[in-house]
């Protein structure tokens, strides 16, 4: 007995030893900085002079900062358009590229290809595609006799243009859906087909319900990353024109690194965290109503 508990103890020590790099990193690069951030959010600090304690002033300022509300609006509108489009688009691609036909791998490869070009290069390509004069979109529209909009340069069109750019990222969700589709037994489809269900009915009653865990996973991933959109706004439009693409993280970046308002920027970051946390919790709670875990209940 004694040797057994000794083994247990040795195993526990080994566990904490193996995970120690992550634990130390958690303290140094995540938990510690979060505490500092919380403290800084109660101060006024430009990094050059000593921080001064201002209590809740930064948080009070959140309430009547019109640019904050603009950035929140931009982020929410963008997310509300982007996330459903990405979920539906990725699923459509997956359903299209699902059958194991000759050469299907080539199509899947091509659909995923633009997803590896994330970052600045991705945005720069779109800047050129959407260029009002020489861009591919307006050239094609001109050929059809339609005068194209000024896309990213027009306050009305800038945000929709950024949503349009996201089409190129559908390959990523497609891959996750394809993996999910593989887990749906073909027998179910065959049985339903024999009972006279057409393709649409089978999609609605078999594929979609059994795919809800995958949709749920994609929804969470997509939501968290969309709320933190930065590069496309910074590189493509720098928040403009007329703040029409002033994303929340871009606003935090400006407050912190252009205006050196470390305190206010930290308060903004905590607001972002609170929003993401609340949305994630709501979606996790909503699982009971729409996510089907093959006989097991969602936990």
């Amino acid at each position, binding site marked *: 007995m004694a040797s057994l508990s000794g083994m247990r103890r040795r195993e*526990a020590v*080994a*566990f904490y030893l*193996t*995970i120690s*790099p*992550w*634990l*130390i*990193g*958690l303290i140094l*690069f*995540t938990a*510690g*900085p*979060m505490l500092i*951030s919380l403290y*800084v959010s109660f101060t006024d600090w430009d*990094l050059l002079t000593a921080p001064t304690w201002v209590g809740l002033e930064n948080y009070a300022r959140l309430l009547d900062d019109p640019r904050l509300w603009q950035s929140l609006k931009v982020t929410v509108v963008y997310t509300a358009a982007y996330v459903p489009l990405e979920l539906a688009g990725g699923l459509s691609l997956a359903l*299209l590229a*699902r*059958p194991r*036909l000759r050469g299907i791998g080539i*199509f899947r490869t091509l*659909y*995923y*290809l*633009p997803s590896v070009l994330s*970052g*600045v*290069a991705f945005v*720069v*390509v779109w*800047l*050129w*595609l959407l260029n009002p*004069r020489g861009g591919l979109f307006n050239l094609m529209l001109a050929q059809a006799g339609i005068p194209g909009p000024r896309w990213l340069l027009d306050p009305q069109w800038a945000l929709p243009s950024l949503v349009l750019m996201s*089409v190129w990222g559908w390959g*990523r969700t497609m891959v*996750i859906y*394809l*993996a*999910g589709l593989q*887990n749906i037994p*073909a*027998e179910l*489809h065959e049985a339903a087909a024999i009972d006279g269900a057409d393709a649409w009915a089978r999609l609605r009653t078999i594929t979609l319900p059994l795919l809800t865990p*995958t949709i749920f996973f994609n929804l969470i991933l997509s939501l*968290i990353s969309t*709320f*933190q959109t930065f*590069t496309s706004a910074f*590189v493509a439009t720098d928040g403009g024109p007329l703040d029409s693409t002033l994303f929340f993280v871009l606003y*935090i970046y400006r407050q*912190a*690194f252009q205006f050196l308002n*470390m305190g206010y*920027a930290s308060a903004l*970051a905590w607001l972002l965290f609170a929003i*993401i946390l609340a949305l994630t919790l709501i979606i996790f709670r909503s699982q009971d109503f729409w996510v089907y875990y093959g006989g097991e209940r969602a936990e």
Partner: protein
Amino acid sequence: MSDADPAHERYLLFPRGWALLIRYALLTIVALLFVVPLIWMFASSLKPEYQIFASPPVWWPSPPRWENYVEALTQLPFARFAANTLIIAVGSIVGHLLSCTIVAYGFARLRAPGKGYLFVVLLSTLMLPYPVTMVPLFIIFSRIGWINTFAPLIIPAFFGNAFYIFLLRQAFKQIPLELEDAARLDGATTLDVLRYVILPLSLPALAAVAIFSFQSSWNDFLGPLIFLQDQSRYTLMLGLSFFRGTTQINWAYLMAASLVTVIPVVVVYFVAQRLFIEGIAFTGLKQ
């Protein structure tokens, strides 16, 4: 599962006749939507300046102007940027592989009080928005003199990454325990087990982590933007963004530079695309 019964497979997954034709037509049209912009980008990069805005448009420049590449890449020190990016990428890959492997092994195999709780903490850090730690990290790194060095972009990799730890843990859990027990009976230590049992059997997952780590540091923008200041320290993405910000944009040059900066990620993708796709699917679904 579905592989076991080819008759059902054929029924569902192999359309015939008109259905097959329509399916291929659709697949091709959608593929064009994804590929035409890339081809057009390539064509643009080879145009002389007067053809860029030509009307009617020039779809393919003749003769193609390959000098654009040389001229674009010498306007800014792109070779320096490429070297900087490579240093950061290689450093991060090494850091991630070392740290995440060890941590993932602990989470996959060893039992200890508090482990379940820590695993939840690990997963919840995935949800933490970067801006929350971005400001304090800048403050800390500027205090210890790390600003304008590659340290903030490499050193944290040696302390793990929640996503890669999760991915590797899932892979390690699939390796039969018996193999490990046999090695232990022969007197192998934990490090021996990792080296001779776990790692050789998880090469695809390790490769996936290396590729993801490479891709994310290659494409990273916000990190370098905050932590690097001198142009001599810029990464490719930072250089490209700076290039785009110059007042007189020469689109042919910009497309040429962009294409060159994405070549490494595209090549890695084509060489290892199976791992890419498996890696993504793996973390997503096999819980």
